[in-house]
């Protein structure tokens, strides 16, 4: 095991895969000379040269589409989006081209490409720069969607994504890049489509992914002091969804809280609630509780920004509600 930052784990994944496979290249804004807007690509330009670490103009549609074209004829691009908010300008290339090539061509083409970058609140960035897109991309067949919480999963999932023959959307987070964690030495491939129980417990299941995992851990530690043992299931992949793992934890604890950073209406958590009620209804001892971001645009003011996002106290409250232990 080596302890490293989330961004260092991503950097290692990129360097390893680029060394292993000359068809892999990185393209995006500031990935080269600047060493990455969040330093994920630090040192890669010097190591792999300007054809494999490509600094682009600020043309998200253009370079996302260019990546798709390269993937259609044998290369394996990793497209870095400075943030997923900017991909709104490129969503046609990701969802109308990359996600549909296999289908439109009747199986003649494949599109092995990774689109990755931070999503969600970065910290005092107001409404245009703080959005989650979990449900947007997961909605579409033809892409896989991963959202790792830990450095180890970030490395292992990015490596798997690069080797996958399909378009993979990867959500990172500005607030995760500086998180430290243990990463196993040697080849690390985390399978896409597999959730992981990050904390074992029998009383209640908290299902989450990406940055919200850390608030769930805080909540679980506090709950343990109060005698409630929460299980945390980190989905890691949103599409394809690991329904087996979800059902297993519901069967074990019979009570579920779903925690997500995004908005409540039509949120990814709403899908999880549906999956649970349709496939594990008989195992539930009560209605599933959701903790989500508030249904408002993100504000700049520190107190407003904090109030909008889920945190440990709100998760604890939801757990108590699902366990019928609400204090009056």
């Amino acid at each position: 095991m080596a302890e490293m930052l989330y961004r260092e784990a991503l950097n290692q994944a990129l360097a390893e895969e680029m060394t292993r496979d000359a068809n892999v290249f990185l393209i995006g804004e500031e990935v080269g000379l600047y060493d990455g807007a969040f330093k994920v690509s630090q040192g890669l330009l010097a190591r792999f040269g300007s054809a494999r670490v490509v600094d682009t103009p600020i043309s998200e549609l253009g370079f996302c589409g260019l990546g798709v074209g390269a993937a259609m004829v044998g290369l394996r691009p990793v497209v870095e989006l400075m943030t997923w908010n900017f991909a709104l300008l490129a969503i046609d290339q990701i969802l109308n081209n990359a996600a549909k090539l296999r289908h439109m061509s009747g199986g003649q083409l494949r599109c092995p490409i990774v689109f990755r970058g931070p999503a969600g609140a970065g910290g005092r960035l107001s409404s245009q720069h703080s959005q989650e897109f979990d449900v947007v991309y997961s909605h579409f067949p033809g892409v896989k969607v991963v959202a790792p919480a830990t450095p180890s999963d970030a490395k292992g999932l990015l490596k798997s994504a690069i080797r996958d023959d399909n378009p993979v959307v990867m959500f990172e987070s500005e607030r995760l890049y500086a998180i430290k964690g243990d990463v196993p030495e040697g080849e690390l491939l985390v399978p896409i489509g597999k959730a992981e129980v990050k904390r074992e417990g029998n009383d209640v299941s908290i299902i989450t992914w990406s940055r919200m995992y850390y608030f769930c851990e805080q909540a679980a530690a506090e709950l343990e002091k109060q005698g409630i043992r929460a299980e945390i299931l980190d989905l890691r992949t949103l599409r394809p969804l690991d329904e087996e793992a979800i059902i297993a934890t519901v069967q074990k604890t019979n009570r579920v809280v779903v925690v997500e950073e995004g908005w409540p209406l039509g949120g990814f958590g709403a899908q999880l609630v549906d999956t649970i009620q349709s496939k594990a209804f008989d195992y539930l001892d009560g209605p599933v509780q959701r903790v989500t971001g508030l249904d408002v645009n993100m504000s700049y003011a520190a107190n407003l920004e904090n109030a909008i996002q889920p945190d440990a106290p709100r998760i604890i409250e939801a757990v108590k509600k699902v366990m019928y232990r609400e204090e009056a």
Partner: protein
Amino acid sequence: MGSTIAKEKLLTIYRKMVLIRRFEERAGQQYGLGKIAGFCHLYIGQEAVVVGAVEATRPDDFMLTGYRDHGHALAREADPGMVMAELFGRTGGYSKGKGGSMHMFDIEHYFYGGYGIVGGQIPLGAGMAFASRYRNEDRITLCFFGDAAANQGSFHETLNMASKWKLPVLFICENNRYGMGTAFERVSAEPDIYKRAVAYEMRGEVVDGMDVRAVYDMVKDCAAEVRSDKKPVLLEARTYRYRGHSMADPATYRTKGEVEQQRHNDPIPKLRDQILKEKSIPEEELNRIDAEVKKIVDQAIQFADQSPEPSLDELWVDTIVEPGEPDVRPRERVLGIKVDWPTFPSGQELKVTWELEPKATATKKTG
């Protein structure tokens, strides 16, 4: 024009143009019979552009276009019966009936598809050319699009990157003067599309897209430059579609006079007259081609009619590639013919030597 296209080549060009014309006429007819549905954009009138361009370049040059794509597949020698079967939504189509009129793909012939969003394919073309430079191949990419696509952001973003990075792509704008029902000059500050190349430090050319020999000569010249100098060129071909935007469009936004005038400029009779006037080929030979083509198109319709609808099991394949799953080779699947398929070096074989940016620019300033 002083074009010196060899006799055999001229015959091939004539045959392909007539094939596309007859195919499209019959496709329109089949649409009327309800055998083809959805959006169906016919290429009638524009044949000289794709045929001239395809004949002036290599069969393994990458190629892609928008949704007016039947002619492009046929020009690249796709099987006419399988193109028609795709229009019919049958299993014998190139995409098993999953794509339809707007999404023809014939990868065996390096035709990377028809795309349904105006201008959405333009950055893909640059990406394919990027891959060619990355692997140090000498192939170029022919990226076709219509006039209306030149007003999309994708056009401008892509031309900028392609020129800056010296990507070997020939952008061919088929200017048929209307973006659906809107005349290009009504919505364009600069209606001369080729002039837009100047903004991106590119060579821009314009050619009479109703004269296949002019297109052939111009594409030969542009393609040679793209291939040898590794840089993009923008070519505007001025053409005209005789039919509406799609089968659903009666084209009432154009005057009868305009269409009539353009009819006199029809590229197929024009080529035929030229050939006969120059006495390079006897009329019987052209008549024989006409008759052969008619038969091919009859057979294409017959093939499509007889091809079954796709099985419902097909719903669950071709969305995600499963590990170890091979790519589908349409003519092998449908006709049982063994075909060559594009292959590219593995990441272990490949050595990337291209420097996209000169070292001096792409290294850190120190001190």
